[in-house]
């Protein structure tokens, strides 16, 4: 870490924010970026948690933590030391799958273990708890809120679930909480409320009975209603989490890959965050090939004396690859410049180079963290 790096935009965010939300399409390296950000913050002395839902097994292996534990797990100092670092802060990770998140929420919200067990063993719950749209996001939001309230962490880095729409994780809880509103559920329960509600309820029952058949329809409705009763408690949390996310303690980052489509995505993301008044702080252009510093063009002079004809023929082809790499570097520099001008005031754009994947992934993570920290710092020409 250079002294310069400590003043870069990423260092600022990691020092001052309480939550960093990494968004982006699938396959852009969002999970790695999130883990690297958390690592960097722990090196700056903060107590950090990286929370990721539906992660690849690889991240769990890299960090040496189990998947789906009931609580966050500390990344062991030995493992960090093996990668040559000893962060003064603390680095925890919580790698969750959706089913476990939902089960945890049920256990916590139920009135006692018996009620929890009744839910968890319900045949509808068993089949569909993973498929309730927005369930991951809803419960993740709740877990996040709880962790921040408890004050165990100075900073939580949230890796959002893969989705074409980068902000789906924010919109899905809204959809679910609108469903889990008991006022709405009264409409599903027969013989309650005003004449108007009863008329609506009759229509709904007719629809559900035609769709599911009468018997399953009533089982389904009573399940949803009791489920709603359970989860409606969370609605307040989701609302206060939303206002927390729009506040000055939060920072949103968009992670993108070096393709022209990223520019379109960045525009879309910027509009969306503005609409939802979320603090967009930067674009991270991952796997950028822009940096060619210190690499030589493979010229004839570099070939050893007495190199054979194969080496000479090979050199000509290597030169073509080198020329292509220079062209790619230029393209990625232009893309970064475009992202920068799109970013405007109060928002940064930085590039992180593609790092060779070594056998030791923790070292790769450290290298990504360093690249993130130094990425936004302008080099003197």
């Amino acid at each position: 870490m250079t002294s310069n790096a400590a003043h870069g935009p990423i260092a600022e965010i990691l020092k001052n924010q309480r939550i960093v939300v990494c968004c982006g399409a699938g396959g852009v390296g969002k999970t790695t970026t999130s883990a690297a950000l958390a690592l960097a913050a722990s090196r700056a002395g903060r107590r950090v948690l990286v929370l990721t839902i539906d992660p690849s097994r690889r991240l769990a292996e890299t960090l040496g933590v189990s998947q789906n534990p009931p609580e966050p797990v500390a990344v062991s100092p030995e493992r960090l030391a093996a990668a040559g670092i000893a962060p003064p802060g603390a680095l925890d990770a919580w790698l969750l799958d959706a089913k476990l998140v939902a089960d945890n929420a049920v256990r916590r919200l139920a009135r006692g273990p018996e009620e929890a067990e009744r839910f968890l063993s319900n045949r509808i719950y068993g089949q569909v708890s993973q498929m309730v749209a927005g369930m991951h996001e809803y419960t993740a939001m709740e877990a996040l809120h709880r962790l921040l309230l408890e004050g165990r962490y100075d900073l939580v880095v949230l890796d959002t679930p893969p989705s074409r729409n980068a902000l789906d994780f924010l919109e899905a809880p809204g959809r679910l909480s609108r469903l889990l509103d008991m006022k709405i559920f009264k409409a599903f329960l027969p013989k309650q409320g005003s004449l108007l509600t009863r008329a609506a309820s009759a229509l709904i029952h007719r629809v559900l009975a035609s769709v599911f058949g009468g018997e399953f329809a009533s089982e389904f409705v009573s399940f949803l209603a009791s489920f709603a009763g359970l989860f409606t408690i969370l609605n307040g949390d989701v609302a206060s989490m939303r206002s927390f996310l729009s506040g000055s303690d939060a920072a949103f980052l968009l992670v993108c890959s070096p393709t022209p489509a990223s520019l379109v995505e960045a525009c879309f993301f910027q509009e969306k965050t503005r609409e939802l008044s979320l603090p967009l702080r930067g674009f991270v252009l991952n796997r950028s090939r822009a940096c060619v510093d210190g690499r030589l063009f493979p010229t004839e002079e570099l070939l050893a004396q007495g190199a054979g004809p194969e080496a000479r023929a090979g050199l000509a082809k290597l030169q073509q690859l080198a020329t292509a790499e220079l062209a790619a570097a230029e393209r990625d520099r232009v893309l970064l410049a475009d992202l920068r001008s799109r970013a405007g005031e109060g928002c940064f754009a930085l590039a992180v180079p593609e790092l060779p994947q070594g056998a030791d992934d923790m070292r790769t993570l450290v290298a990504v963290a360093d690249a993130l920290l130094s990425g936004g710092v302008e080099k003197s020409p």
Partner: protein
Amino acid sequence: MDLTGLFSKRCVLVTGKGGVGRSTVTAALALAAARRGRRVLVSEVGDEGQGHSPLARHFGRERLPEVRPAPLAPGVEAVELLARVGQELFLATVLHAATLAHAAMSSEALRRMVNAGPSFREMGVYFQLLTLLRARRPEGDPLHELILVDMPATGHTLSLTGLPELLLRLVPRGPIAEALREGQGYMNDPAQAAAWTVTLPETLPVSECLELLDGLRRTAMPAGGVFVNRIPRDPFTAAEREGLAALIARHRLLGAEGFHRLEGCACELRRLQAGTALPVIGLPELEGGPSLATDLSLALEGADPVEELLAVPRPARGAAPAAGSLLA
């Protein structure tokens, strides 16, 4: 590659993790099928309020047409698969009245339920796809002979392919069950449907591809094969490679990254091949641009199974170079 088998299906799901070029492959398949005179429909699983569609962009549009299929290119029609559209179609069928379905969908409570309730969105998408598969011309043959679906990220893909089995366990009788069984009649029949998975010759994409193939097997979705996209052209002969080794080890060179990438690529292709018995087809790395889908559709016709790319014996010292193959 002989595309006859793939194009003889009624429905091909194009799956794969984000960023591997799934939309490009879907668009290329559509163009190639249309060139052979197939009546093609391309679609993607859309999301209400989605700003842009990568698939539509290959055809110079921002979004795919909604609700009704509309022409997108010569011989290619398109429609977005939307949960809401499918849900309304389904309700109209079971309630035998479009007006009642419309009234039901304007009930606030029901709308909220189908927006967030378990499996309702998947069911909507599934039913819209079924409706498209059912559609026939007055003469009786299918309106769209081939329906190509650009599928969402892995988790959502498996929610969709696993939907019938999951719901049938809960609701074994009634209109939903009937629709799902009819859907299974198409989707679980290897003669009529197949999932093709797109991946890249890189570590993480290959691992995730193998996991996805496992998932498809668990959900009884027939797998057609794997497209390995963006395989870089390897210009080097073995002798040239050897001749350069010392130079590359001695200096930090431009071009070395590409040189090493070619080796990693061959290694990942072997790992993929060892992990699946399905056909693995290599697609070349092409220059991006407005004609990318067309270029790839032409490359598809001449694409080779990966074993042919890998099995090319490395020529002995002094033999004629086998440059020009994708991976010598």
